[in-house]
């Protein structure tokens, strides 16, 4: 059945055949598409959805006209700097700010005692303070904040603040955090160690599953911590007016959460606070929660009555972190002789850093999505997050699902090899089916996993190459899936996850108000396309007003790959209502029923006789005359998806995207140097709203995965981050990044806006194991930890050949491997 429906490869074309010129010269990526099925409210077919097109905001980006948070300067403003701990773990005995305060140009200094309010992005772990009250928990933990007339003076003042510490033993690893003889970072009388969160879940009959297995595979893996490293350093401008209203311009992916927490921490009514999210210069999950500098700037703006700007230095960005958790795994999989999985037991230990952040959710995510890719009839998951004296970890693109995917796909190749199975066919055979439910109660709807595997492997001739290339060359496959937004909000409430207002101007322009944040992912263009499609106008006719808590209805934010699905659906809901009003008044003019009214090419017409038409402007004016101002609201609330067990709230999503990546590599067998020659990635995006954007998200995900696979590390020495700069923290340059081929697979999700799912995070996940599998194919040895460095390559080859040939002349002992094997 599915095979018969398999689409042929084609480039995105205009199914409407509409003659209206598209604003783009961009070639569309290849799209695997079934015969287009138009939703009932779009009988005239698509004229915008699926097209390639430039990002609407790119015109002002290439001219430097946009104002990012740090680009905002206000009259009489102050510059703020945060004093940060030099100790990994210490009690603060005394803070003396008098000398700093006496420095000419210094206007105010605050410390933790001034804002003694605990908060946390998750209501379940409010363990942060704007500045340390009595204990510092990592090198970089904020202690005080200085504001001065200029940046240099603020910096000088920091050096004059005297802090007396009483050092405490630092907890710097998962193993140390599990010990009972070290001090607790956060006092917890119920424990004797530094465990933050434990999760133990079991679904199906795991014992029976393993008992019925023909083979059992057990491996250990370590996924290194990484950080987002957006090029924009976090920045905030805070202004407190004589009207006692506070305005924050913050580089944030989640203006709503900043709004909520600023109100709580500052003790102000939320109605007196306005949070504006200007364009964000890259987020990747790193700007999804309120930060100390934002709250300190707000507090100081109120205290001084002058605008306060704080822009983090690059070093501080490393300290702010909230990046990928380092995770250690034990993975046990039982299979039948034909590879059918009988049971999986996954154990994960997450190194959480000093605070909770989103860590409780991350812990669940290291186990939750194991089951949505391949059929797993029995599943046991034990997760454990610990506190350590390092910058706090949080969500990074792929949030918690990236690390286990490295382990799962690595072991799956090993299983295929051990059982003599073709690794691609094997994956397809055990792939989950569309419209099924996983053993842990997750609802899978549209699923193009098999199509993705086919597309990526056929394009690369994977089956002809794998295991057959010369030593030193390799090809690797991996697949994965991701959420289209978490099914539940992070704080319990029954309200929509996203709202939108669509206003139709009598001049033909359409404005959408949406609480999203544009961090480069393309939410602005996505919203414009959905509204333009619904109303038959050009995306350039749509003005997107986003991320302003005074103006825009709440959207929970640009994280969790939720924006297209949730904000897109809310915007479509609002636009459909406007369409309905316009259609009714136009129908009256045409003398037909409203169902016969079509919208395309800035015209509104009778679907039965397209000659009978009017311009969109005429139709808008007709509607305004008939109904009054055309401004409609829309909302999106996901269906109830959570199963009935504790912890079931993490994992459900209204839809899952699917991806398959094939990496082709060359390995220098003498130096261990890895050259990734090409990455081909097929992604099931449901339906692509904007082909350019989807392709960009795929390529960006591949890029980010490449860095994590090959070079990004998170090392500490003597309690301190060793490389908090962009030279030593390696991110791939243009010379490191291979050609990337993006293949868009469409499955038309029934609940997504026009069938769309996500593309922001999912495409990253399979890249890392695909590279690992390709390297294994090239060197005939497996590496069980990231990043896969040249040094590990040589060691793995030596271990596989049972010699230490390459390094035998060496007398100096090499550094111990971080792999907990």
């Amino acid at each position, binding site marked *: 059945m599915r095979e018969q429906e398999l689409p042929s490869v084609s480039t995105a074309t205009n199914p409407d055949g509409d003659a209206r010129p598209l604003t783009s010269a961009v070639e569309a990526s290849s799209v695997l598409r079934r015969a287009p099925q138009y939703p009932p409210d779009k009988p005239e077919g698509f004229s915008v959805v699926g097209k390639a097109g430039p990002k609407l905001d790119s015109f002002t980006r290439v001219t430097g006209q946009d104002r990012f948070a740090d680009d905002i300067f206000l009259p009489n403003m102050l510059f703020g700097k945060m004093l940060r701990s030099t100790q990994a773990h210490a009690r603060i005995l005394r803070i003396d700010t008098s000398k700093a305060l006496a420095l000419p140009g210094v206007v105010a200094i605050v410390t933790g005692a001034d804002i003694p309010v605990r908060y946390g992005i998750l209501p379940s772990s409010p363990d942060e303070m704007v500045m340390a009250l009595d204990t510092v928990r990592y090198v970089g933990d904020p202690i005080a904040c200085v504001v001065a007339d200029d940046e240099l003076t603020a910096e000088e003042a920091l050096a004059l603040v005297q802090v007396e510490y009483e050092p405490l033993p630092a907890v710097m690893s998962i193993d140390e955090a599990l010990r009972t003889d070290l001090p607790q970072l956060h006092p917890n009388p119920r424990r004797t160690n530094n465990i933050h969160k434990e999760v133990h879940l079991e679904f199906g009959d795991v014992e029976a599953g393993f008992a019925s297995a023909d083979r059992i595979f057990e491996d250990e893996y370590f996924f290194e911590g990484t950080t987002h490293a957006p090029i924009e350093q976090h920045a905030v401008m805070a202004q407190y007016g004589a009207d006692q209203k506070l305005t924050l311009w913050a580089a944030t992916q989640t203006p709503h959460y900043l709004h909520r927490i600023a109100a709580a921490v500052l003790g102000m009514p939320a109605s007196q606070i306005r949070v504006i999210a200007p364009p964000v210069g890259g987020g990747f999950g790193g700007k999804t929660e309120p930060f100390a500098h934002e709250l300190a700037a707000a507090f100081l703006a109120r205290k001084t009555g002058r605008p306060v700007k704080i822009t983090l230095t690059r070093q501080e960005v490393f300290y702010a972190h909230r990046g990928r958790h380092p995770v250690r795994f034990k993975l046990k999989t039982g299979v039948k002789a034909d590879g059918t999985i009988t049971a999986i037991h996954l154990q994960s230990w997450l190194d959480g850093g000093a605070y909770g952040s989103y860590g409780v959710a991350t812990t669940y995510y290291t186990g939750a999505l194991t089951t949505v890719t391949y059929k797993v009839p029995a599943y046991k998951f034990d997760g454990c997050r610990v506190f350590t004296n390092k910058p706090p970890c949080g969500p990074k693109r792929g949030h918690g699902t990236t690390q286990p995917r490295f382990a799962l796909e690595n072991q799956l190749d090993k299983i295929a090899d051990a059982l003599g199975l073709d690794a691609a066919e094997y994956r397809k055979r055990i792939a989950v089916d569309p419209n099924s439910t996983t053993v842990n109660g997750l609802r899978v709807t549209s699923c193009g996993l098999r199509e993705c595997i086919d597309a990526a492997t056929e394009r690369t001739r994977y089956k002809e190459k794998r295991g057959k290339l010369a030593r030193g060359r390799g090809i690797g496959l991996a697949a994965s899936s991701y959420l289209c937004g978490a099914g539940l909000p992070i704080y319990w409430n029954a309200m929509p996850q996203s709202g939108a207002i669509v206003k139709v101007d009598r001049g033909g322009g359409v404005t959408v108000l949406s609480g999203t944040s544009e961090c480069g992912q393309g939410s602005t263009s996505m919203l414009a396309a959905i509204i333009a499609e619904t109303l038959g106008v050009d995306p350039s006719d749509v003005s997107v007003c986003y991320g302003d808590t005074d103006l825009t209805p709440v959207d929970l934010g640009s994280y969790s790959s939720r924006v297209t699905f949730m904000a897109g659906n809310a915007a479509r809901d609002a636009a459909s209502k406007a369409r309905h009003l316009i259609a009714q008044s136009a129908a009256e003019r045409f003398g037909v029923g409203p169902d016969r009214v079509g919208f395309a090419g800035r015209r509104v017409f009778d679907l039965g006789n397209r000659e009978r038409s009017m311009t969109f402007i005429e139709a808008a004016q007709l509607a305004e005359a008939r109904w009054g101002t055309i401004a409609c609201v829309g909302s999106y609330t996901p269906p109830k998806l959570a199963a009935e067990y504790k912890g079931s709230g993490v994992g459900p999503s209204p839809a899952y995207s699917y991806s398959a990546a094939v990496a082709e590599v060359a390995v220098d067998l003498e130096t261990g140097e890895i050259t990734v020659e090409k990455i081909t990635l097929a992604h099931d995006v449901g339906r692509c709203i904007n082909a350019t954007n989807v392709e960009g998200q795929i390529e960006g995900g591949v890029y980010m995965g490449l860095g994590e696979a090959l070079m990004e590390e998170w090392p500490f020495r003597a309690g301190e981050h060793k490389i908090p700069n962009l030279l030593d923290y390696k991110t791939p340059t243009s010379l490191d990044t291979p050609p990337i081929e993006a293949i868009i697979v469409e499955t038309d999700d029934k609940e997504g806006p026009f069938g769309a799912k996500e593309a922001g995070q999912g495409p990253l996940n399979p890249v890392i194991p695909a590279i690992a599998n390709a390297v294994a194919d090239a060197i005939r040895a497996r590496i069980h930890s990231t990043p896969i460095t040249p*040094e590990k390559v*040589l060691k793995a080859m030596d271990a596989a050949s049972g010699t230490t040939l390459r390094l035998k002349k060496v007398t100096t002992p090499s550094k111990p491997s971080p792999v907990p094997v």
Partner: protein
Amino acid sequence: MQYYEPNFIDEALVLLDRFGTNAHVLAGGTRLRFALRRGVAADAALINLKRIADLGRIEDTASDLWIGPLVTAAALRRHVLVGKHAPLLATTAASLGAAQLQTVATIGGNIVSADPAADLVPALIAYSADAEILSAGDCARIATVEDIVSKRPALQGRELLGRIRVPIAPHRASYQKMTTRRGLEMALVSVAVSCRMGGAVVADARVALAGAAPSVVRARGAERALIGSRLSSEVAQAAGERAAADADPLTDARASAAYRRALVATLTQRAVMEL
């Protein structure tokens, strides 16, 4: 902070003498920016050398190529005399950071900063380059680049690096650089080899290693393996093994000492094979 733009070398030397350790010399400024960020004394002086034309020239004589310390990596990459007499310098200049750094980074700064993984220094040492060291009231003294970079700091407070001299002679040279990533990167290990040939036999050889010791060093064992031999894969392998023995690498965040030593062997072998 006081600021000076001396027009002549002597003027600069007098200023250096006067301000001693409070003097900060501005050439390309890529390192100075970091030093200044750590804070400077109120009576510090910034001495900008940009007006001293003598320090920015590239000239040749019958026997030597003279390169002023203010010559940038970009200029080394493109200058016809460098391409003619010291092509390895052009090669290494092209691998220094990226275009933005090459515009400003100077050969003098590369030497004086004495980084163990400096990009230009291995080529200079392979070429047996030396340099003038100037100070107020004294005659210029000459020191080899290898000696200069082996000291911490490379220069004393009142000293200024003068012109760099690269002897001109027919030679074969090659360069190997291994990095963690391919752009905007210093060497994990790099190897520069230069040989003068007497017929088919290596008459003289210089092998310089970066990232393999506390400073850029010569691999004298590897040089001995080359001198008097005919180039072959066996000789290359022997040179590689000797270079690895000469190396004294450190373990740091980027690589272990063992891996660096293995790289020295492989890269030296490859560099010799490429001659």
